[in-house]
């Protein structure tokens, strides 16, 4: 039996075992199906950034940094600031990550994180305009993944929102000569509310939240919903070449709404703790 054939068999075996375990509502790390791993958040760790946060969800570790610079608005939205989300899955993060430009997984990750922030209107971009059509603030959010143990979508999203919430920027204004100046005054970013990303994996017929790398290796499908403070769904993404039944989609939205409340409280507490600490 060749090495490759063997590894397929091993993989199927592992999946069968995991499904059996899940059918008893158990997971390899003893969590319940609807339990997240411990979430820890440190903010303000990069003094040169306007905002920053290191988030750990179990062994998954990401750092996000916010830089606010001046730039030109898009021609079709002259009265809005710009939001640019970029994620880099660094080669530090796992034995399988390679240096180089973001691959399709990293691009999907960045775009889903971006969508959660953008579609929930978390940042009021209309308040970041200095001269309509000509000068606006550009909010760059760079997410660096340092260690991968599953659920990059949620960890990256939490790092992003924690760095946005704690961002500080100088007040910019236009002087009498039409020049942009920055005052001494420091102000936070204009925030509307906190969107929470909840990612679920389907393994066999079971949905679980916050999958580890080990669980992701055998999952059939992944689905993420971002929920705003009012319980609205504001972004969604099904991933992986597996399917979801119509009922599983409905169930996933319900799980997302329930868990989002819980995680929002955890994040608020963690961010607050830092602010005091």
């Amino acid at each position, binding site marked *: 039996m*060749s090495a*490759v*054939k063997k590894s*397929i068999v091993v993989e199927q075996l592992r999946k069968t075992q995991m499904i059996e375990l899940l059918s008893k509502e158990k997971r390899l790390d003893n969590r319940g199906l609807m339990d997240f791993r411990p979430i820890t958040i440190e903010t303000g760790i990069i003094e040169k950034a306007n905002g920053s946060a290191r988030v750990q969800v179990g062994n998954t570790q990401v750092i996000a940094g916010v830089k606010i610079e001046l730039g030109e608005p898009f021609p079709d939205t002259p009265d809005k600031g710009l939001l640019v989300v970029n994620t880099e899955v660094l080669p530090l993060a796992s034995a399988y990550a390679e240096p180089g430009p973001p691959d*399709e*997984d990293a*691009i*999907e990750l*960045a*775009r889903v994180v971006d*969508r959660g922030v953008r*579609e*929930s209107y978390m940042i009021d971009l209309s308040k970041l305009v200095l001269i309509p059509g000509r000068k606006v603030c550009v909010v760059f959010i760079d997410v660096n993944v340092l260690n991968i143990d599953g659920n990059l979508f949620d960890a990256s999203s939490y790092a992003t929102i924690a760095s946005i919430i704690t961002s500080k920027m100088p007040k910019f204004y236009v002087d009498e000569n039409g020049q942009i100046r920055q005052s001494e005054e420091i102000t936070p970013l204009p925030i509307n509310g906190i969107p929470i990303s909840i990612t679920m994996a389907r393994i066999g017929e079971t949905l679980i939240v916050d999958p580890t790398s080990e669980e992701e290796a055998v999952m059939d499908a992944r*689905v993420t*919903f971002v929920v*705003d403070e009012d*319980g*609205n*769904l*504001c*972004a*969604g*993404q*099904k*991933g*992986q*070449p*597996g*399917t*979801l*039944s*119509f009922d*599983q*989609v*409905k169930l996933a*939205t319900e799980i997302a*709404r329930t868990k989002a409340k819980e995680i929002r409280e955890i994040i608020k507490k963690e961010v607050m703790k830092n602010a005091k600490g």
Partner: protein
Amino acid sequence: MKELINEKGLRIDGRKVDELRPLRIEVGVLKNADGSSYIEMGKNKIVVAVYGPKEVHPKHQALPDRSILRCRYHMAPFSVDVRKPPQPSRREIEISKVIREALEPALILEEYPRTAIDVYLEVLQADGGSRCAGITASAVALADAGISMRDMVAACAAGKVSGQVVLDLNDVEDKEGEADMPLAIMPNLNQVTLLQLDGKLTSEEFERAFEMAVKACRVIYEAQRKALIDKYFGKAEVGEE
């Protein structure tokens, strides 16, 4: 915000909230491809070619137990209002990925070990919902190429415009509306293969939009069947015209 639905409940292109845009599917439009199709869905115009199953280069990327599916969604520079440079954008790379993941569940890839199947989508004109139209056309092109399939894949978006849940958003509705939710299903197996959401929906709106999109996918599935039957059995014979 511009009013996108008038007092008669009609949308800017005259459609009702749950009405699809005009749909046209052709099969076998490219001579060299193993399978091909052309779709018009509103002003979307997309051509799809399938090559494969074929040898994989480099060989070490081949899988011993199944074929690998590769998809490339690409927009022609002239397909949108402002010319798009030909290099793939981040948006095109993400859409290529979700299209592949939307098609793969329907294909019996285990039948073609150590091979690759390439699906190339070229958007000649984009008008909102191009990923859904592209999935619909790709499934037809895969069938035209004779790839074994568990089920067809049909796709359609629903969303929210001027406060109402609507079907199959066009370009303006996509950009100026409140939410867009592209969906693809396997119509006989009743499984979701693509689901994305951009924009806010309440719980109830989500369910309403989801149902509307599923229903539309079933209509689109009939159009897919008809296009394939027309090609392989002739129009008159099956009497579906």
